[in-house]
């Protein structure tokens, strides 16, 4: 265990944070027989360390502390960011401690998790953070030893001068180095010399996760803190009357308060609040449109049939192309609302004291949390601190600060530190869903089966632009039109892992297979033909790199043995999103007369892979996520309230339903791009296309499980 540090603090989470590093190394993890070494806690290291920049502090002991600014929700940024810094520093990874940085808009920019954007945004600056520190450490050693810096080498935290046989660890030069400055232009390592980047480095929080240490927002407790749960109205409704007598009678409930259109039950622990919620009687009345799923189905058709839309892209002359077409293919696809359902429900801690506030919890956007609190409280943002806990999943849900706002409001009203906790039911009924959409596709083919015209109209509910007009097949079709139309609903929506593309990719890739079939072409050949047109004779600009798209397509065709085994019925899908290219093939085999989904093969071009384990996690996890939601995810509404309120009716994918997933990467030589989202969009289309190949049945709506076409499809289990 960690040595020395005594603390009286009662914040569970903080105690864990300060001992994290000590536990990591002093834990005898996996090595029961090794001698116990006295290991310093991260706090002890930091107390003597010199800061080199916002990412990096090094102590005279040679221990390196790397700050990870972006919220960690499972995308592994807390491991992969420090890997990049350590690489350029030439640090010994075993002497690196990683600390989650608090919100600090002066030290960091883009301190958020979303859009798979962290790695491409920070790649250069992380490398520079490591390289500049290495530069001054080398300069300090050169001055100390009176040798030229150019003759000094650094490896695993040891600085050496071969000719004079001098060497020492980082810590010996920290004092002097911290007084020196590195030049603006700094030489970065040649990628071929990387020793940390491109390897499998374990999640830095493993020991804490696997022993149940407090890491997550929900694990945060403070002496004297009040617990609060909030009852929110159905969408489109407002409070008419409240009867809180039953709720107040529950032992352990101290207060029931109304704020805005919500009712909060408050007490000293969680369970009494859950009980009180059931006894709380709130009557609601309409306050705008009160919608149900059947209204949405009607609204979709009205939107698609109406002349109203925003044209997002128009190339050539679509009307003429369709007039002269030998064949026209049309189809409509629909996807429902989805909940993000991260395993850790929404929660946040707030302590408002006069013109200051302290915020602690799981957020993908700590700065938005702070700005939201500043607006509510009417105090300057710099008076508000935000501590970022580990997030038990996010999927876009924690980009919003609605639950932070609740904690701030209740803390202010109660004049006390407050943790707001959402129940699972709150999470499913409390809004900010993936928008529901319906698409109408039309394709015009000439006599030779060439696609000469393409039309897409997207109709979404609170979706914004439900299309990605510059994505494939843009630039590959001479006459091309993409438009969108939106219905504004009181049902709140939000970015959901791979926003828009998480359903658009399925619809589009399935429709392209319908067109390929009508054109009498193989799905791989059909797409390659289009991509070659986009490359050699583009119509307008493609919003994607055609060569990288072709690269993943060819790789997945090869790795999946596309079309080689007549007993394997395959479906293809290729998609570009969030700067990354992913192609997938789903394999179905007939077993005992039933089609069984056995395997998904994926080829990914995300540029350089930073952490091989992390990358595999994101690709496999994205596919499992895409598959689970395409098959089961469905949130339906009756009078402004979701029908599915917990995991008994809102089904998430489980172990037995997951097939083998075979993961490949295409090394295109580019810098790394993000992987948190891009593997998800292609999956639904690959599965739908494989089901068509196997059964001749086309799945045009999600969730698949509720479609008749899916009734006898079985899911494969990998047998090792």
């Amino acid at each position: 265990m960690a040595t020395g540090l005594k603390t009286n603090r009662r914040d569970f989470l903080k105690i864990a944070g300060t001992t994290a590093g000590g536990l990591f190394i002093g834990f005898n993890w996996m090595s029961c027989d090794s001698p116990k070494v006295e290991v310093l806690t991260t706090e002890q290291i930091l107390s003597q360390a010199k800061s080199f920049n916002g990412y990096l502090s090094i102590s005279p002991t040679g221990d390196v502390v790397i700050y990870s600014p972006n919220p960690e929700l499972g995308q592994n940024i807390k491991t992969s960011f420090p890997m990049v810094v350590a690489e350029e520093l030439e640090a010994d990874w075993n002497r690196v401690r990683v600390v989650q940085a608090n919100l600090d808009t002066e030290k960091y920019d883009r301190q958020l998790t979303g859009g798979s954007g962290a790695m491409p945004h920070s790649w250069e600056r992380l490398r520079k953070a490591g390289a500049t520190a290495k530069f001054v450490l080398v300069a300090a050693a050169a001055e100390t030893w009176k040798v030229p810096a150019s003759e000094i080498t650094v490896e695993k935290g040891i600085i050496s001068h071969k000719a004079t046989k001098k060497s020492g660890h980082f810590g010996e030069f920290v004092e002097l180095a911290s007084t020196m400055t590195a030049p603006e232009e700094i030489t970065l390592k040649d990628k071929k010399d990387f020793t940390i980047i491109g390897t499998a480095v374990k999640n830095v929080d493993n020991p804490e996760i696997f022993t149940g240490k407090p890491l997550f927002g929900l694990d945060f407790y403070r002496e004297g803190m009040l617990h609060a749960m909030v009852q929110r109205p159905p969408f489109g409704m407002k409070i008419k009357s409240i009867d809180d007598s039953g709720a107040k009678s529950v032992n352990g409930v101290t207060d029931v308060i109304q704020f805005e259109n919500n009712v909060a039950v408050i007490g000293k622990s969680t369970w009494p609040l859950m009980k009180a919620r059931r006894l709380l009687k709130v009557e609601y009345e309409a306050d705008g449109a009160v919608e149900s799923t059947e209204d949405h189905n009607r609204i979709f058709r009205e939107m698609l049939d109406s002349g109203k839309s925003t044209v997002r892209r128009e190339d050539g002359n679509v009307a003429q192309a369709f007039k002269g077409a030998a064949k026209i293919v049309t189809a409509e696809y629909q996807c429902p609302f989805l909940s993000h359902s991260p395993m850790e429900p929404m929660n946040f801690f707030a302590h408002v004291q006069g013109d200051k506030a302290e915020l602690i919890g799981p957020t993908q956007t700590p700065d938005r949390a702070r700005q939201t609190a500043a607006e509510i409280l009417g105090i300057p943002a710099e008076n508000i601190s935000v501590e970022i806990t580990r997030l038990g999943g996010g999927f876009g849900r924690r980009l919003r600060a609605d639950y932070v706002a609740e904690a701030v409001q209740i803390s202010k009203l109660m004049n006390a530190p407050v943790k707001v906790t959402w129940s699972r039911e709150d999470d499913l009924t409390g809004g900010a869903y993936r928008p529901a959409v319906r698409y109408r596709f039309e394709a015009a083919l000439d006599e030779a089966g060439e696609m000469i015209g393409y039309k897409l109209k997207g109709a979404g509910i609170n979706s914004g632009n439900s299309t990605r007009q510059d994505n494939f097949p843009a630039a590959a079709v001479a006459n091309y039109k993409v438009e969108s139309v939106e219905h504004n609903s009181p049902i709140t929506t939000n970015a959901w892992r791979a926003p828009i593309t998480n359903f658009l990719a399925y619809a589009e890739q399935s429709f392209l297979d319908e067109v390929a079939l009508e054109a009498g072409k193989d799905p791989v050949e059909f797409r390659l033909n289009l991509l070659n047109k986009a490359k050699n004779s583009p119509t307008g600009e493609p919003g994607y790199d055609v060569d990288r798209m072709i690269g993943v397509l060819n790789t997945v065709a090869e790795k999946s043995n596309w079309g080689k085994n007549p007993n394997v019925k395959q479906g293809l899908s290729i998609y570009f999103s969030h700067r990354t290219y992913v192609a997938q093939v789903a394999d179905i085999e007939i077993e005992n007369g039933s089609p069984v989904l056995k395997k998904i093969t994926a080829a990914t071009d995300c540029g350089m892979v930073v952490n091989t384990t992390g990358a595999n996690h994101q690709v496999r996890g994205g596919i499992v996520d895409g598959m689970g939601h395409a098959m089961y995810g469905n949130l339906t509404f009756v009078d402004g309230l979701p029908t599915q309120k917990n995991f008994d009716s809102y089904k998430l994918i489980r172990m037995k339903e997951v097939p083998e997933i075979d993961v490949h990467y295409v090394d295109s030589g580019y810098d790394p791009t993000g992987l948190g989202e891009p593997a998800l969009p292609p999956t639904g289309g690959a599965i739908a296309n494989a089901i068509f190949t196997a059964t001749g049945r086309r799945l045009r709506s999600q969730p698949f499980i509720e479609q008749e076409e899916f009734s006898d499809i079985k899911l494969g289990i990998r047998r090792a």
Partner: protein
Amino acid sequence: MATFNLKVNGKSHTVDVEEDTPLLWVLRDHLGLVGTKYSCGIAQCGACTVHRNGEAIFSCITPASSLEGDEIITIEGLSEDGDHPVQKAWDEIDVAQCGYCQAGQIMNAAAFLDKNPSPSMEEIDEAMNRNICRCGTYHKIREAVATAAKIK
């Protein structure tokens, strides 16, 4: 309110809570053992899994007052130094993404392997099917359970 004794991770605690309070909330709110997670509250996801006399149970639906005299083990008490074979396997295979469900997964796997020390992959799938991982780490979980069986 009811006062009763609860033996958690080998330690006796006197607990004074409403009789229907689930073990989950006694652990988290009263005993400071927050490794056991809340996620669904209705025994659907397994994030709250602990051991009762060696059996994996859902602590979110089990009233703590019904557990007097039982040996309760939580993730914090699974091993002294985090070196239970399942924990070691979880580290070796690097299972976690967000990590929130993993304590429940580990507790379920540990109870399962106690009963079935050399399971087939089908048996692993069957046993682990009661825990949800929203990040989709199922392949790694499967591999880690098989690895833990070998460590044992």
